């Protein structure tokens, strides 16, 4: 496929690896923010071809992983109601809440449906006027434009039976939270290419300056990721800390203006709790009061469900890049993709699941 195959070319990738080798002189810790990049790194074995000086740590950029337990529990409560058709991206169905997951709700008779686009959920609402259709709106800045448009469209059409259970999170505040932690090890970032496609990269400039870290918006194919690493390493070696765009074919400095406009129209910035990390100020989006009729939390009054994580799970520490999945005593034992204790093992792009699925040979 055009624009994929070229950026998977092993010959090209190997040339970049050689360039990285020629550039690096000291140890560096680089974090890839995005779970999609983690997935690609482990799947293609990129971590295995890098010089030993470079340590990749895996960031919190997996919406499935950071969606707090109580939101999952709220989703489960709403989805269990007989009048509700609960719609979700496939990713969220297996994520365990405190007692069950959405798959179990389905097996108990709940009407839980997988959709590929939030507009499919709007269509279901249009076709089922006597049912309440709820869409589980999780994700980062990339998914926000679609979820915003779904609400906008429902409002345009006057659909009163559509709402979203929103758990939107924002990347830059999480990056700052990690950098300002006392035990931070991250020296450079690969920023998430598709988040930057929507938001642009202006908002990363103050972070790069304040914390003296190179930030490189990076794509998802092996050639992209290796080139992103090369750009970060070059800056680190030269003592520079700038925002430098690797993913030129998709990311523009100003991002996608029409998308940003509609996000602002529907959502406003709020404090959000991140699973495993805790509350980060101004790190999420919620539906504006103007559109409260489309807010499932408001509509269904699911109130304050409070829940606690499994004690043995260290997914919070893993999401902050402080430990690798294999350093967890439960990894591969009590905790595996079939019996996940934490979200990093559930999501296919969670660091633990990626490590489990694409293990290195012993």
């Amino acid at each position, binding site marked *: *496929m055009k624009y*994929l195959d070229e950026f*998977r*070319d*092993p010959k090209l*990738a*190997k040339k970049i*690896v050689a360039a990285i080798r020629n550039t690096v002189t000291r140890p560096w810790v680089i974090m890839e923010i995005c*779970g*999609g990049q983690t997935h690609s790194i*482990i*799947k*293609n*074995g*990129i971590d*295995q*071809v890098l010089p030993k000086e470079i340590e990749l740590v895996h960031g919190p950029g*997996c*919406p*499935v992983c950071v969606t707090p337990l109580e939101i999952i529990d709220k989703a489960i409560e709403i989805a269990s109601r007989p009048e509700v058709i609960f719609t979700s*991206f*496939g*990713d969220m*169905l*297996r994520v365990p809440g405190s007692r069950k997951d959405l798959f179990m709700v389905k097996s108990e008779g709940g009407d839980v*449906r*997988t*959709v*590929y*686009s939030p507009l*499919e959920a709007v269509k*279901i609402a249009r076709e089922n006027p006597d049912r309440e259709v709820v869409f589980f709106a999780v*994700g980062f800045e990339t*998914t926000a434009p679609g979820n915003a448009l779904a609400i906008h469209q429902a409002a345009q059409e006057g659909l009163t039976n559509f709402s979203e259970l929103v758990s939107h999170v924002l990347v830059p505040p999480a990056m700052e939270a990690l950098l300002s932690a006392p035990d931070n090890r991250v020296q450079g970032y690969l920023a998430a290419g598709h988040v930057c496609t929507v938001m642009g990269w202006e908002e990363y400039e103050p972070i790069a300056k304040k914390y003296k870290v190179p930030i490189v918006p990076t794509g998802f194919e*092996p050639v992209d990721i290796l080139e992103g690493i090369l750009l970060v390493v070059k800056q680190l070696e030269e003592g520079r800390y700038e925002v430098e765009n690797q993913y030129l074919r998709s990311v523009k400095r100003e991002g996608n203006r029409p998308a940003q406009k509609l996000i602002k129209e529907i959502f406003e910035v709020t404090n959000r709790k991140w699973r495993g990390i805790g509350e980060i100020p101004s790190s999420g989006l919620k539906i504006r009061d103007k559109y409260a009729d489309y807010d499932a939390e408001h509509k269904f009054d699911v109130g304050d469900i409070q829940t606690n994580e499994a004690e043995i799970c260290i997914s919070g520490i893993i999401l902050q890049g402080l430990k690798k999945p294999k350093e967890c005593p439960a990894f591969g034992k009590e905790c*595996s*993709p*079939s019996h996940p204790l934490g979200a990093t093992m559930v*999501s*296919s*792009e969670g660091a633990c699941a990626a490590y*489990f*699925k*694409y*293990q*290195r*040979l*012993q």
Partner: protein
Amino acid sequence: MTRPEINFPESLSCPVPIMHHETIQLAHGAGGKLSAELIEKIFLPRFANEQLNKLEDQAILDNPGKRLAFTTDTFVVDPIFFPGGDIGELAINGTVNDLAMSGAEPLYLSVGFILEEGLPIATLHRIAVSMERAAGKAGVAIVTGDTKVVNKGSCDKLFINTSGIGVLPDDVHISAGNLQVGDRIILSGTIADHGMAVLTSREGLSFRSRVSSDTAALNQLVRKMLDTTTDIHALRDPTRGGVATTLNEFARQSKVGIRIYGDRIPVRPEVQGACEVLGIDPLYVANEGKLIAVVPETHAADVLTAMHTDPLGEKAVIIGEVVGDHPGTVAIKTGLGVSRVLDMPVGEQLPRIC
């Protein structure tokens, strides 16, 4: 051995027989007049053969005096019609293939239908026609059958169970536990066609897909392979769980390591496209007309050549080998030249956005 008599349809257009009802009624499964009408008008004209025509409660078969292979499988696909096939064709080919993977020559099938009340007779007829064609193509006879009707909502349109009997040549000993270090792993063609054809035709994903299922009976391909050498160590059709699952089963049962080369595995561009969009790894997606063969290195080239003469094996390739390292584990070599573990999948492959 003599092959059972097969009636090929005279013409490709098979008009729906005129019946008392246009949809399935509970009485169609109650054993009375409507049951008889269903058998006489829908099933017998399609599946006719000497044994079935007797309408006894059992088929009486000659004992060919050899080892028999016997298998059963139940089919519950949604949607029941998908690009490249339907549940009926799948039910025939699936059981034929399970027999063929032992090296047996498939001969007789039984068919059990569970029908949902209200199913259009025309739908059932269309499926019966496609089962007739699939059985004809594979050279097997449907010699006994059963029909039950359940209340609306108790099953999704229709479920089909097929069981099959085949006869094994004396010198064939194929088993997932037979892999030897040095053996070559052969894949008969492109992967993930069936699973992606079904997934992309599901409602709610808005695909306008050109992906077509690969459902096919593999017994003739297997015969060509066995004509080359009977020294085939293992054969399996990578259905649910895909190629990755079959290779892991081989490695575990034979307590050997398997190494495959990611870039040798053929995937059609449109299938790859659908996999990319839904975030699904083709190595974990079901196939219904492909096989993986494990053969000694000395026979690998000959078996491959024989496979290339069959339309179902035209694109057969050697994708890897059996190794002494990492017993029980499958390793895949990536484009970057490094190896990683290729594990069993966990649960159903779900479309993802992350």
